[in-house]
């Protein structure tokens, strides 16, 4: 059962990583224009990041 000492923190850290990534995307306003983001990938010129 000692393996739990490693595996449980591992699973928590992985989950936490996903949560932090989600919060980052939310902070950077990545859900306000899903349709536009799908189209912007096709733009020729360098697309400046959001102001």
């Amino acid at each position, binding site marked *: 059962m000692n393996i739990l000492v490693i595996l449980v923190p591992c699973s928590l850290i992985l989950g936490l990583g996903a949560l932090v990534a989600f919060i980052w995307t939310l902070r950077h306003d990545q859900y306000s224009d899903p349709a*536009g983001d799908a189209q912007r*990938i*096709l733009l020729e*010129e360098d697309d400046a990041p959001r102001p």
Partner: protein
Amino acid sequence: MTMAACPGCVAAGPAAERAARRAGLPTHELILPTIHCSACISAVERLLNARPEIAAARVNLSRKRVAITAQVGLDPTPWITALTAIGFEAHEARATIAAQGNDGLTLRLGIAGFAMMNVMLLSIAVWSGASDSTRDFFHWIAATISLPAAIYCADPFFRSAWSALKAARLNMDVPIALAIILACGLSLYETMTGGAHAYFDAALSLTFFLLVGRVLETRMRSAARSAAADLAALEPNRVTRIDGDTRVSCPVDEIVTGDMLWLAAGCRVPVDGVLTSPVAQVDRSALTGESDATEVRAGAVLTAGDVLLSGPVTLRTSVDAKGSTLRRLVYLAALAEGARSRYTSLATKAAGIYAPLVHGLALAAFLGWSFATADLYHALTIAIATLIITCPCALGLAVPAVATVATGRLFRMGILVKSETALERLAEVDTVVFDKTGTLSDSGLVPPAEMPDGPRRVLKALAQASQHPLSRSVLGALADVQATDLDGIQEHRGKGVCACCAGRPVALGNGAWLGLGTGTWVQVGDAAYLLERRERAVPDAMPALSALHAMGLDIHMLTGDTHAHATRMAADLPVDHVHAEVDPEAKQKLIRDLQAQGRRVVMVGDGLNDTLALTQAWASIAPGTALEASQNAADVVLLGQQLSGIPTVLRIARSARRRILENFALAAGYNCTAIPLALMGFATPLMAALAMSSSSITVTLNALRTK
């Protein structure tokens, strides 16, 4: 030495200001209804970012808007002109809408999802046989994750439940909040005493599923709200004011009493005022329902909402823009205590039955078990397990899931549902009352019958060249005519369009400009034809009304117009009852009388004279061409003028109501099997988790059947 005199600061000044401006919030928003692809995005952004006065411009394709950061209060007209020149229709948005107001809710959803998945992993270990110290260890980890997560994520439910309890009401959030609190409390106690049953995963999945419903609902509503705001922006909010000898464009809100306004033909009068030009033709149908144009002379009072048919004219305002808007808002707010505030939604009704029943059962279980076994702790565990397992989850999702699917479907068809209970009320409707002018019929310019084919083709080409409402209305009568090619098309604002056709000058415009008297004329070489103004049924009135008949609805037509006009229109359409020459109060009274006979009435109207009736009716629909005031009063707004949307709305509303009732039945079915087990004391956390997820999923899948 002061800070301002420091050379470094002086140098940093403009740069810092520019950076702040770049980082700052957008100052202007333009609505671009026609953008749809990546080429549109880059064309719009390149054009706007190349202008020196604009610090940043960013297109939002989902909302079909562009946010512009520039100096506050700058006139956006040149940008709109530039965009129109490269082929993008653009309008100024009244107010920049704050970006997505539901970020807090989305964050809560993310956290609830994270916590739920981790706790579920630990729970699976416990269910598959972890025991003793391992189980306690897992329970403690689950507790550390769940408690803060539940407190933070379920906050919206706690708040809503608390405000309902304070007002001595029961809403769906009361049993939800209670279930979350009890599940957490009982599990914490179990964990501390080394017990076997912890319901942390149930508490979190309950929160997660319900937040999904809540997020979908807010998204849908904010989409509808922003679309409604876009619609309002289509009405021009800038007017031309005459300051001495110059004409300046200024926002409607800045008009004060005594301003001189210059209005082109086809404009809606923005503020009440007195006509100072010698003569003008106006369409007062928005206020009176009359379809015939009226001729007014200098000194006559023009009311906000009148449409000018001739022009340009000048007007001296008699009220402030603020005054008149405010007056109307107060007027409408006073009316708003209509059917919608008296209506109890299905969710509230269900909560009214569900909450006392389940809470009563839990209480009975507690009393029964404590009498039978004299073991208070055991009795309490069973009572709480009953509350958790009875799944407020499915009930909490039953209505929002269906409402989201139904409003989403309607939204994609260009139908905005503005009120939360609108669909439920529309499902019960058995009578449709239409306003005639502007809803079932519109007035447009029609070329005279004796006009030969050649000039008709020129007329079509001229009308196509202009965005003016009067030109647009001519096109309706020339659908099967082929346009000719014209050279050198010039539009003279407020006067007309002129061009060259095979060397001959041709023109379409107001009589005064062409030297032909009043009215709108088309001139082809030496010949001139007066365009007549005639009322006709809108193209989709016939199919829409027939569909409503087929659904078994009673159709009434109400109008402020004369009996002669009303009967002529009614002869062409399948209308059951006609009421002509009714004023706004009479319209309201008619609807009240119908409702007193037990009828459920949906009112469809567009004018200011319909707002009273719209508020009085059980449910109300306004076409997209309606005045803002009527749109505010209506539950549903049809974008574009598509009456065929009305049968669709009613059909989807009925289907949605059926799905909601089915969902309630499904939730009740689950409870019928779960409650006896819980009451007998056989409930386990695994059962709670299974019941909760499977019922939520069935309810959501059933909602998708709404068509």
